């Protein structure tokens, strides 16, 4: 079978019409939760509450929320360094998410991984390595294993534009294409890999064209339009569950802040950053919901304060949790050395 050629979906999403208010409010709540959690994580880092680094995804929330909203518990997420909030989206309790930043003994990995490099085994979020595109390796393998079981669960793997230059990306997606794996490859194309601009990363205009090398569909959407992302993702998930194989979903978006909290990001122009801030994925969606009266100002305030309360409790939990003990250093190296 010749591959379906990629199609670039640049037109606006159909908007809020004909969708249930529950869905729309669910998405809204999650967008907001990611935004506030992420901003909180940044503040905590700047306050010196934890070390290492944090990779903010503020500005990109529509991509992660749109792609992962509605996944089932038995679905998998393979996140990268900028996808700490994918744990939140998948349903991990916030207290564990903040405990992870603080590297406390109550975090899922007992403080081993760097902040933001979070997985959550009970809900199949794979603990990421920093090694770029590594999650595409592991995620593709999981998809292969799921298909082998005959299950209809899917894997959603997140990564950036830079990751598409790696050999790991190619080997994973080529394999997925050959075996029509139930995997959704979601590229948050934020136009920068640390300080390297897209034009030094690829000769392509649309990274979804990379899918043409693997014989499965590649789709480009406005990554700041949460419903556009969600529609495209749901179509891909449906395809995947039906055994029709993977999809590469490119979401054009932007990170508002530096690569990490210690990056002043001087390599970008003010105009570029301001231009993207005007396309705030949260504000745009909020306005839609307010305009259509699906959300009221009162509700909005209430949702925000519920989230803030939850975050505050989570931060408190994290702060009060103990660090792992030095004696744990060599635990979990091999199975015999489990704690």
């Amino acid at each position: 079978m010749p591959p379906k050629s990629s199609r670039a979906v640049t037109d606006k999403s159909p908007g809020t019409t004909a969708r249930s208010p529950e869905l729309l409010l669910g998405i809204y709540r999650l967008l907001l939760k990611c935004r506030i959690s992420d901003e909180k994580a940044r503040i905590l880092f700047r306050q010196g509450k934890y070390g290492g680094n944090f990779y903010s995804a503020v500005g990109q929330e529509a991509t992660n929320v749109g792609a992962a909203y509605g996944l089932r518990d038995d679905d998998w997420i393979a996140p990268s360094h900028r996808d700490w909030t994918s744990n939140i989206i998948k349903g991990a309790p916030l207290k564990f998410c903040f405990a992870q930043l603080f590297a406390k003994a109550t975090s899922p990995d007992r403080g081993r991984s760097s902040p933001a490099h979070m997985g959550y085994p009970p809900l199949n979020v794979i603990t990421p390595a920093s090694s770029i595109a590594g999650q595409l390796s592991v995620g593709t393998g999981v998809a292969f294993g799921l298909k082998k079981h005959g299950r209809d669960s899917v894997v959603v793997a997140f990564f950036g534009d830079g990751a598409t230059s790696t050999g790991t990306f190619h080997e994973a997606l080529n394999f997925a294409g050959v075996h029509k794996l139930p995997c959704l490859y979601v590229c948050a194309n934020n136009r920068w890999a640390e300080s390297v601009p897209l034009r030094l990363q690829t000769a392509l205009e649309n990274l979804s064209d990379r899918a043409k090398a693997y014989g499965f569909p590649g789709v480009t959407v406005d990554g700041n339009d949460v419903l556009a992302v969600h529609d495209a993702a749901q179509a891909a998930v449906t395809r995947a569950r039906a055994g029709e194989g993977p999809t590469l979903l490119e979401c054009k978006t932007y990170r508002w802040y530096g690569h990490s909290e210690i990056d002043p990001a001087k390599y970008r122009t003010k105009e570029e950053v301001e231009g993207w801030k005007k396309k705030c994925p949260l504000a745009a969606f909020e306005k839609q919901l307010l305009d259509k009266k699906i959300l009221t100002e009162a509700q909005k305030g209430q949702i925000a304060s519920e989230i803030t309360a939850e975050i505050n409790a989570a931060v408190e939990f994290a702060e009060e949790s103990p660090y792992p003990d030095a004696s744990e250093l060599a635990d979990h190296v091999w199975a015999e050395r489990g704690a």
Partner: protein
Amino acid sequence: MARTLTLIEAVNEALLQEMERDERVFLLGEDIGGSGGVFKATAGLLDKFGQDRVLDTPLAEGAIIAVAIGSSLVGWRPVAEIQFADFITPAMDQIIQQASKLRYRSAGGFSCHLTIRVCCGGGGGSGLYHSQENAMWFAHEPGLKVVMPSTAYDAKGLLLSAIRDPDPVIFFEHKRLYRTAKGEVPEGDYTVPIGPAAVRREGRDLTILTYGSLTQPSIDAAGQLAQKGVEAEVVEIRTLAPIDKETILNSVRKTSKVLIVHEDKRTMGFGAELAAIVSEEAFEDLDGPIVRVTGPDVPAIPFAPPLDKAWNVDTGAIVATAEKLAAY
């Protein structure tokens, strides 16, 4: 009932029996199906188990290991093949950054129950890119286990252990031994545990620490040495990681002299760690220098027969060095 099998037959039998016993086990790699493997280690398995369990993969070692890792997370027991150790380098990121560290970085939340079979070593005329060993890189990486059998019996028993082991095990098969190592192998199920070294010959005058293709030449050397009145103990390090210090140190305490023998390059070869362990933990018992007889510090074994031969560490070299050490 035991029959005489070659090492490669033992590998094949272990794979076959474990696939019969455990439905979760499947094989993946290049040319393992349609052709039964470059050396026929997987011959017959595609016919018996079908494509679902014997998967010929794209030419991409990184993807092979990736799929092994990921599928193990959902309950499979993959046995991946890297056709030649020389071609394990494209999979280093997957092995080192993913497989060896996934259990650790998730504090046991995830783990990699997988086996990587790797054909390694010089075979006499294999050349620069079909003769590398490359095992020592992995012995440096906690989280991995590294195994290299030299007998047919161990090949079957260790491979069964490896496939059942909940951690990533890299299982090196030396190509020179595939058909030269023959021995009794039980028909039924048995395991040789990962870890313990094997004392292949007892002796009181010196200890030869070796593994892989130089195990038998070391045993042969010990035979010749006996005729000269030197009783060498031969300890085969079947598991390179984790290392069985106890067996090594017990032997050294008895003999007081250590000769390390391996085919791989000398500098930073696996013998370096053996020397370090002995010189740290059995120093008082040593009556002579720890001597290494190894391959040279040359990138890999070149092809031309005289050059290939010049690399070879043979029984003669072991005997000569051991004699000097015994007389020390």
